[in-house]
């Protein structure tokens, strides 16, 4: 049987069928872990060969790719049904946020609730001590036995931004085998192991939105209660009406295209006012905020919280450089972040993640920009 006396602990690896999670699983298997591969069925009809969802994540083809890796590396593999959990914890809040004029990041919700909560509990049910994913991030144990979440060595691929909600309990039971590798190294490893998906293109879009080739706007329109779609006015910063729109969910902060308003100089979305359904636009010069207010703040190690303002760096979108800032933690899981220099397009609904050097201190969800 597979479980010899020297077998390392059981680990459930979340497999998408992509090269990253495949190599993560393969590395753990080579390392002697008792690997159990799990692919999650997340949205309605993607698990049938006829679904035609070739580019989307977790399609039938992707499950087959993951299954082939498991066969090649000789570990058990299962597809689990997480559709109900995914609808409740990811899709519903995603639609709700857009309808409220915010720009959510569903990958954050998916990591927090699906991978590191629901899947972790399912892994416990399977007798697994750990779960692992193909994320590019590192977990290290400090001299004091505390766990630190760090950026990946490959800065281009670093995905620590999506993982800031992990706390000590989760970090202690999570493995990121790719944290010290570059994407090229991962692909090379996949080729060495003869994995068929070594050169599979990366998924780019939000998995459940791109599966029908539509945009997130159409997705929200399709899934929203029609009574909650808010058409309204497009106004300038003085309140003068420039046009009409058919729903605030069609806009995000900093958006330039598709405003339906033509001016000699380009206009950008400056603010979305859900109460009045107004979309405020302005020219580029006016864009720039002093800082932001965040809610639902969590820290990877709460013992490092300080009552004083802390000098940190922050990321206010995934593909954004680190910005020097001061962080002030406040009551009820809120925080104020002041940037060293003004920043454009602070977007409610996105995450603001706090870094100290390489380390992720934590983060929160952007509620509002600070403008004074």
């Amino acid at each position, binding site marked *: 049987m597979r479980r010899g006396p020297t077998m390392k602990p059981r680990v459930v690896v979340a497999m998408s069928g992509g090269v990253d999670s495949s190599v993560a699983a393969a590395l753990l298997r080579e390392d002697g872990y008792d690997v159990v591969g799990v692919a999650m069925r997340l949205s309605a009809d993607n698990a*049938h060969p006829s679904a035609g969802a070739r580019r989307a994540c977790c399609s039938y083809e992707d499950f087959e790719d993951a299954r082939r890796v498991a066969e090649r590396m000789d570990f058990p593999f299962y597809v689990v049904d997480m559709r109900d959990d995914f609808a409740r*914890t990811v899709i519903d809040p995603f639609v709700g946020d857009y309808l409220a004029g915010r720009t959510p990041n569903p990958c954050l919700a998916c990591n927090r609730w699906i991978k590191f909560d629901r899947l972790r*509990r399912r892994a416990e049910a399977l007798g697994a001590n750990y779960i692992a994913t193909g994320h590019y991030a590192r977990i290290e144990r400090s001299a004091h036995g505390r766990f630190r979440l760090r950026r990946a060595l490959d800065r281009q691929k670093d995905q620590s931004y999506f993982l800031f909600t992990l706390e000590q309990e989760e970090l202690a039971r999570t493995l990121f085998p790719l944290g010290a590798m570059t994407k090229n190294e991962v692909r090379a490893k996949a080729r060495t192991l003869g994995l068929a998906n070594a050169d599979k293109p990366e998924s780019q879009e939000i998995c459940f939105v791109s599966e029908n080739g539509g945009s997130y706007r159409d997705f929200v329109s399709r899934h929203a209660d029609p009574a909650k779609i808010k058409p309204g006015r497009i106004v300038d910063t003085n309140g003068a009406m420039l046009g009409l729109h058919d729903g605030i969910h069609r806009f995000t902060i900093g958006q330039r295209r598709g405003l339906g308003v033509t001016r000699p100089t380009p206009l950008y979305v400056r603010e979305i006012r859900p109460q009045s359904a107004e979309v405020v636009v302005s020219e580029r010069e006016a864009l720039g905020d002093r800082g932001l207010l965040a809610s639902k703040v969590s820290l990877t190690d709460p013992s490092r919280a300080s009552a004083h303002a802390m000098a940190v760096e922050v990321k206010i979108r995934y593909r954004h450089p680190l910005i020097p800032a001061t962080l002030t933690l406040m009551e009820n899981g809120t925080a104020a972040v002041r940037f060293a220099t003004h920043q454009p397009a602070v977007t409610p609904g996105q995450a603001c993640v706090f870094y100290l050097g390489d380390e992720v201190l934590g983060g929160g969800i952007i509620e509002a920009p600070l403008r004074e």
Partner: protein
Amino acid sequence: MEIYLDWNAGAPLRPEARRALDEFLGNGAGNPASVHRSGQRARRAFEQARAQVATLIDAAVRQIVFTSGGTEANNLAIFGAVKARNGRRKIISSMIEHSSILGPLKALEQEGFTVHRVAPDANGRIATDQVVAELDESTALVTLGLANSETGAIQDLAPLAQPVRQAGALLHVDAAQAAGRMSLSATRLGCDLMTVSGHKLGALAGIGALYIRDEHLINPLMCGGPQERGLRPGTPNILGAVTMGAAAQTVGSRLSEEINHMSYLTERLRSRLWASIPGMLLNGPLFARIPNTLNLTFPSARGESLLIALDLEGVRVSMGSACAAGAVEPSHVLLAMGRSRRQAHSSLRLSLGPQLTLEQVERAAAIIVRVWRRVSEAEAPNEEARG
């Protein structure tokens, strides 16, 4: 060590079937349709297999047509019958049938046929008077499973034979799960068509048979060869048939012995689990059930997690049916019996076989209890902490 409790999905090859296969292969190849001696030898083995299958279900040799399995036999029965009953556009069945019956019925519905699906009672049994009440001069076919693959419920179909024939319709009985688990007589049952699956009996997969009371009752689905009286043209799966014949003969010769053994093991497993898992439910009738099948609802645990966790411990069980990608779907049979989606999601099918030992079953019971405790502990807090 593996403990296989999924015999309703497929049984391991019986030693007698393997011996028959070895013996046949040792004598060289041959196509039973060929005129030469090799062909004659193959035909002899093939016809012997047909006789063995006929004996198992108390039929005449010429009433047995070999197919590629239970699914093809069900398709041949259903499509073949409605083709032959030209003009009759109604079919009566139930909500708890195997997908190889539900699928053809859905296809016929799309062609304009009327399909009436009788609902089972809470124990998964079909009331025959509900079927009789639906019979009329437009009815082409009544198609029902004799033993349900998921709950093991046995249906009392004999009372249907007379009224169905009087209405001018055909009675098809899917006995794929019944063969080898109860005494079968196509003649006494009075049906027109009966499906038997090879690998559920311990033959190779890829072979099955359809009993056809009279060859003129149905039309073939394929054309192009004289084999099987033209009802199933094409070179037959002779290797499969040889194993099915041997398996059928073995089953027939010790049926009561095997039924007693399986009943004992199944009841032992049920009582062991019953004693240690408070709130466990048995889905299906307590008595009118084939002796190897237990469908159980486990409190506060996902069936999917139990299935995977048990697999990792070497115990093979099943749940509902799997989608193309291998994810499990809740059982349509349990839903039709009035179980909630939640209950259906928390249910497993354990199906036993004649080669299991008491020691294996005791060990399986201990593992299932241990795994259920772990899974229910890990998954119990599922309802708090919502996103």
